[in-house]
């Protein structure tokens, strides 16, 4: 059995319209989760709706990457909790890490970084791609919604 199949078997509950998934702070687990979610979204025909799958994948990718790098400081054993609620009109995602949060108001007050800057785009991308963005736990949880 492939590594990917093992990972998918380990995925927790998908109950009706809500997915609750916990992963380690690992880029390989992030990639496998994103692959699983994209397939799940396609099964739900989200790919009939223009850029919806691309945008959701990118927003989740950026949120989980921030959780790994900045929230959990790349400590693999630290967990990331992902919750996705699917309703007829919207998709609501939450990504929570075990860190102390960050000054999200300062980040959101910026425009896209200097053209030649090699970093600083993650949260701003989520803000641009999604219809709403909020934070919990002083920044250790990021919550975003996309209307369908």
């Amino acid at each position, binding site marked *: 059995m492939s590594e990917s199949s093992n990972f998918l078997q380990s995925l927790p509950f998908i109950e009706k319209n809500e997915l609750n998934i916990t992963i380690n702070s690992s*880029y390989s687990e992030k*990639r496998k989760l994103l692959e699983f979610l994209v397939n799940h979204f396609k099964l739900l025909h989200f790919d009939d709706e223009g*850029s919806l799958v*691309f*945008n959701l*994948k*990118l927003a989740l*990718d*950026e949120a989980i*990457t921030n959780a790994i790098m900045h929230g959990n400081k790349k400590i693999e054993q630290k967990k990331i909790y992902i919750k996705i609620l699917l309703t007829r009109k919207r998709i609501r995602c939450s990504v929570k890490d075990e860190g102390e949060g960050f000054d999200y108001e300062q980040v959101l007050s910026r425009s*896209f970084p200097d*053209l*030649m*800057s*090699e*970093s600083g*785009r*993650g949260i701003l*991308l989520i803000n*641009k791609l999604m219809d709403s963005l909020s934070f919990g736990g002083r920044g250790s949880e990021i919550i975003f919604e996309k209307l369908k």
Partner: protein
Amino acid sequence: MEIENRREGDVEIIVLEGEMDGEHAIPLRNLVDNLVKDGTDKILLDCSDLTYMNSAGMRELIAIYKLIIQNNGSLKFVNLQDDIKELFNFTNLSNIFSIYDNLEQALGDF
């Protein structure tokens, strides 16, 4: 991400296929680094089959762009898929990258 490269005249065409994140972009950065060291100054990225990119992938592209420019070279992009073109637009990267809709046009503009 799969990477293939070929020479057309004095332009190196690099064909990207799949998804570009920070990790997947490392072989691309290594390839461009070697090309620049060998004196190649015209590089074209064919993105027809590039289906996804995150901010780490964008960061790598900016690093590659800087490397080429610092060595007095030129980098062009061709055939971006709509989602990635949109991403370049709202992050303002389309203001620094030279982007073309077809290969002939891009090759003719070096």
